[in-house]
């Protein structure tokens, strides 16, 4: 049994890292918004999904226009990312303006319901557009950098097996890391980043310091959503096929990652994402082996949810967050 586990370990690590990077960047979107509005932005999973669709759409457009061969792959990749980030960023700003801002002083329950509404609305909206333009809501496109690589881990000895991946996997992980580092620097070093943190900590005092709170919140939504959209592109490039419902479960898992790391904490979200990705891939590869076939990989989602529940009950402030107490 151990040798089975070891054999699949390199592949599990590679897959876990890939998925974990996706979760981590999406988790940052949740954490940014929650940090500033204390609202679970249920629509964030759908922003990610929209990013994936926009990326795919631009890709298909390039293809049909015959530009794909004419420009270098990296340029196409960057253009696609930029388009998706811009559109999803603006979507985020729009959603905040339309569905959340009017409810800022309403009971939390009502804003949550509005957020769920946005999430549902977007799922069908994207489905309409996809189905109207291609006839199906399942959309595939050709992907860049999909040549196969093999990590010959088995040469290291033992019973370790080889891991297979695509060039795009490497790109995905590198871009995800770059996005996260860039965000971390932005939040820590720039004027706007500092304003964001100020508003997250105390909105009223920040307003007194002549920070334009609405602008900062809009900016937060733009950045969080653009990150989500960019991850959508990475995801679509990695897996090739997208549908309007990929955002829902992925969103919950990314949220779990954010909670695990400590909501409001950017580095926590990175750690949480990687952890959830690894656990999920490990469970999906090994659960059957470990339980002699009684419980298979189909229970992998249960793990993410179970982690979510356990963390919220026993350590609701997460691993890197600070406990907050309601003011009485």
């Amino acid at each position: 049994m151990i040798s089975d586990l070891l054999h699949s370990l390199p592949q599990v690590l590679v897959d876990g890292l890939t998925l974990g990077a996706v979760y981590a960047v999406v988790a940052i979107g949740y954490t940014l918004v929650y940090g500033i509005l204390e609202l679970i932005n249920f629509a964030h999973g759908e922003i990610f999904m929209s990013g994936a669709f926009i990326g795919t759409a631009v890709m298909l457009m390039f293809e049909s226009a015959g530009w794909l061969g004419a420009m270098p792959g990296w340029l196409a990749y960057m253009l696609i990312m930029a388009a998706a980030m811009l559109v999803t960023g603006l979507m985020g700003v729009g959603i905040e303006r339309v569905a959340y801002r009017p409810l800022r002083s309403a009971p939390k329950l009502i804003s949550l319901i509005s957020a769920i509404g946005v999430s549902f609305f977007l799922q069908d909206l994207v489905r309409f557009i996809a189905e109207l333009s291609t006839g199906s809501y399942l959309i595939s496109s050709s992907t860049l950098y999909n040549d196969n690589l093999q990590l010959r881990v088995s040469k290291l000895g033992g019973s370790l097996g080889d891991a297979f991946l695509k060039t795009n996997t490497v790109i995905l992980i590198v871009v995800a890391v770059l996005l996260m580092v860039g965000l971390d620097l932005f939040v820590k070093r720039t004027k706007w980043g500092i304003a964001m943190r100020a508003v997250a900590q105390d909105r009223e005092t920040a307003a007194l310091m002549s920070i334009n709170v609405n602008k900062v919140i809009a900016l937060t939504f733009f950045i969080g959503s653009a990150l989500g959209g960019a991850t959508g592109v990475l995801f679509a490039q990695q897996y090739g096929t997208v549908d309007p419902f990929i955002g829902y479960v992925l969103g919950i898992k990314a949220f779990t990652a954010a909670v695990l790391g400590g909501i409001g904490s950017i580095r926590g979200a990175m750690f949480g994402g990687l952890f959830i990705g690894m656990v999920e891939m490990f469970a999906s590869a090994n659960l059957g082996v470990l339980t002699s076939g009684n419980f298979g990989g189909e229970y992998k989602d249960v793990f993410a949810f179970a982690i979510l529940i356990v963390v919220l009950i026993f350590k609701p402030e997460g691993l890197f967050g600070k406990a907050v107490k309601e003011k009485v």
Partner: protein
Amino acid sequence: MMDKLITGLQGSKYAQAALLALFVALTCAWVFLMDKSVVAFLLLLSSLLLLHYTSFPTKIKWAVGGVMLLLVVPFATSGGASHEAYMEVATQCGIFIAMALGLNVVVGFAGLLDLGFVAFFAVGAYTYAIFSTPQATEFMSGGWLPLTGSYFWLFIFIGGFIASLFGILLGLPVLRVKGDYLAIVTLGFGEITRIIFNNLDKPVNITNGALGISSIQAPNLFGYHFTFPHQFYFIVIAILALVILCVKRLEHSRLGRSWKAIRDNEIAAQSSGIPLIRTKLTAFAVGASFSGMMGVVFAAKQTFVDPTSFTYLESITILVMVLLGGMGSVPGVILGACVITLLNLQVLTEITLWLNQLTMQGIIKVPHALSPSKMQRFIFGAVLILFAIFRPNGLIAARNRKVDEGRLRAANAPVSAKLRDPSGHGEGGSS
């Protein structure tokens, strides 16, 4: 002119009664004579809404409503071939009303956002499905299995009970979680429940996995079998009456007040001596039990259950019913559940059929993607956003019960006089 008419109507109960009777008679005749008319059926049902707005005493309203549901509606729809179709829709409405009332206890009264509510419905449905089919013999032995349809009646309560137990088990950990996290945790639990039902065909086959359980026994009352929607309709009406009675009694009771107190201010509620976890658990258990009971009926009616009936979309559908109707408002939630169920089952399909016809005749061209029957997410999403922003109290806002001040003052007068006189000083006291 119009104003005068309206004030005249508001003043005279006879005029109201006459108008209502006329309306019912007309819509009845229409439903009876037409083979299938969605519009007529909707109008007939909306007479119950009119009834709600009349100024008769509550008891009379209930009595008239009962007669309408037990006699008028079944009779009016029996005219044509669509009898069973109408009754099916009405039965579904009843099932969803009970579930929405259950969720209303949790969300509307206690203020706990539960996004996995359909899990309790699933528990009820599977409870009956497993024991009324050979499925139970997969993991239990006993000559008494499978149970016959005459156990259905018992199972309505067992299903409700198991669902409420499940609600408590689930609530024990979940309710420690702070308000807005609760939503996502319940969502997680809803998904876990579905995944487990979907995969629990091994190591021990309890739910038969994704294949579902089929050939569920029809209810049997002294040899009379319930198989058609028009028969289930009466079962559903009976359970619904029970559910509404329970909700009405709880709403303004000590327990109901505790729920609302927790909803309005948790810390103040606790400082008033209201135990948080226990009170929230009761809300979960009561809400879940309504769902569980209807789950049993659903399983028996469909004669088949599988995990696809219990998805996140269903949970949100129930939430939409509650928000649309009015959180915390019993008549509102009933209306919301009816509107959404009718929209789902009747209106959207009718419009789709109509659009398809137009497309076939080449008048307009509606692409398949925009077929209204697939637009639930779009519509529900829009309803959730719009109502949250513009009408958070729903179609019929919850109203507080007003007490009769005169009666209290009269009852109080002799006592307060006694209380004050010996002490010798009145309102102001000393200075």
